[in-house]
């Protein structure tokens, strides 16, 4: 097999480049400045994040990717206001963020629907907290449930739904508050591959149709490239920004693009960043022969 000559991930077609130029003209929704976070743990002070800086523009789709334990969840929890930073600040529409609020919607990896509320009442929850009347909250909620395609399940309880359906409700519930930004922490991580790709397509569809900025955490490279305008790559120990990649794959995205040169070039770059070839890799070899010696006639033919 001959190696295919890939373009650089930095090469952008004219259309893509024009799109990024326009995107950067838009107002900044979220700005993270010199953000740092340290935890007091048994092993002493752990630096989870160090000097993180980035901006997201209106209606941009940003993915955050990085090895497990690099601080992705910590970052998004700080953005949501569920944790406070040790240093630096987070600005939403140029105003500092201190606490959780309905201007930042969040979808968690685990299922966090309220089990005692039906789908409809789950989606109404935020609206009622905002002081909307029951009637307005209900009609609003039904619209959002429609949007995520669950109108038949409006009166079902969460335990009657599949994992994918639960996450769709969670998205509807977060969006119903009309947040400035939607924060998603590996929302599809627990779903099977088929459901996951359906959910990705749904999410893109929703994002194209409403005025929402998305910050999406994942550890799945394909997912990040398929969804994102830009990908923020974090490295671990301490969590720092490794690179901010502009995805050169044109929109609208389709599943076929996974074998397009732009897609592969981007994936190659992400792989270099996330799994850098190091001396450590030697230890990845398993000492198979010791435990699995089998007869010659059943040997795998390489």
């Amino acid at each position, binding site marked *: 097999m001959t190696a295919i000559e890939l373009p650089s991930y930095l090469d952008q077609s004219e259309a893509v480049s024009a799109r990024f130029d326009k995107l950067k003209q838009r107002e900044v929704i979220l700005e993270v400045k010199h953000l740092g976070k340290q935890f007091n743990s048994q092993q002493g002070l752990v630096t989870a994040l160090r000097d993180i800086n980035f901006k997201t523009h209106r209606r941009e789709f940003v993915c955050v990717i990085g090895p497990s334990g690099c601080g992705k969840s910590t970052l998004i929890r700080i953005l*949501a*206001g*569920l944790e406070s930073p040790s240093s630096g600040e987070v600005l939403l529409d140029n105003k500092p963020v201190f*606490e*959780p*609020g*309905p201007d*930042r*919607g*969040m979808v*968690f990896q*685990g299922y*966090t*629907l*309220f*089990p*005692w*509320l039906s789908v409809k009442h789950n989606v109404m*929850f*935020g609206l*009622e*907290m*905002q002081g909307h009347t029951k009637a307005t909250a209900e009609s609003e909620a039904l619209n959002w449930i429609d949007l995520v395609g669950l109108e038949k399940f409006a009166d079902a*309880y*969460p*335990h009657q739904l599949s994992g994918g359906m639960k996450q769709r409700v969670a998205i509807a*519930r*977060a969006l119903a*508050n009309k947040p400035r930004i939607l*924060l998603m922490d590996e929302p599809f991580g627990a779903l099977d591959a088929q459901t996951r790709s359906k959910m990705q397509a749904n999410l893109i569809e929703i994002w194209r149709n409403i005025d929402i900025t998305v910050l999406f955490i994942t550890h799945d490279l394909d997912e990040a490239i398929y969804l994102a305008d830009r990908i923020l790559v974090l490295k671990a120990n301490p969590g720092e920004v490794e690179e901010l990649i502009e995805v050169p794959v044109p929109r609208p995205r389709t599943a076929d693009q996974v074998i397009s040169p732009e897609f592969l070039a981007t994936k190659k770059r992400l792989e270099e960043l996330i799994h850098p070839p190091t001396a450590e890799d030697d230890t990845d070899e398993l000492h198979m022969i010791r435990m699995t010696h089998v007869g010659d006639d059943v040997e795998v033919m390489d």
Partner: protein
Amino acid sequence: MSQSTRWFAVRQALTRKQVTTLTLLSFLLPILVWSLVSYVPFLWHPKIEIVEPGSITWLKPGMLVEQQVFLDQQLLAAEQKTAPPEGFRANPIYLPAPHEVATAFYTAFTTEPTRSSEQWLHESLWHSIQVIFWGFTLSSLIGVPLGVLCGTYVAISRLQEPFIEFFRYLPAPAFGALAVAILGIHDGPKIAIIFIGTFFQQVLIIANTTRKLDVALLEAALTLGAKKFQLLFRVVIPGILPDLYRDQRILLGWAWTYLIVAELIGTSSGITWFITQQARYKNFDNVYAAIIMIGIIGVVSDIVLARLGKRLFPWEKEQVKG
């Protein structure tokens, strides 16, 4: 292997029929043992019930004597060539046969109190139920909210729980005399004992249940814009409600165990008093009937509450038992 033949699969649900069979068996087996001991003469039956005293003057018909004593008297009569006593093997008086207890279920209600100051069985039962009700209700009125607050706010927990942890080790019965001195001799001190026995456990158990609520639900509510009291009333309370209800059912069972103590202080009354009195008069069939009645009241009320719980909390997943 077919599903219905598997009785001993580890933590696998059984079929409906299997469950019904086992439920029936769980009651039938003890009754069977009891019947065997009662009706099969050579099983146990350590006594002899006298039918005909013969020449032994101190024996009376209907008297229960030890077998050895009876045999000695028979020998004695034989030696003296007088009429031997006659009798049959019987169980001690404290083990009435099932049919006697079954009859007592009816006759216990019709047994007139020996003294006018004493209560009929139905009055005793009703009295006990009222004492339990008030003791448990008063305890819950304070204990449940306090438990929820302790489980929600660390400051309240730190302020209350150390003292409660200490107090729950003090045995409720020890407060009997004090309760009488303060609350008089009637139902006051009885209710107080049930309260003391229930309350402290209740706060701790419900605080724990509240703490078990998934923090992620609270965080989700925060990101949806919920504030202080909305978190408490719209998330914490509905979130723990099914578990809280289950705790209350268990605690209600405990409250019954304090009844025994409660009813023996001050003026004796209620079902435990009925039982002690009947035991004193050696009406052991009434004693068993009354004890079983408490069991039936307990089980039936728990089944009713469990059914009600299913209605009240339709979002709860079915819990498979065994």
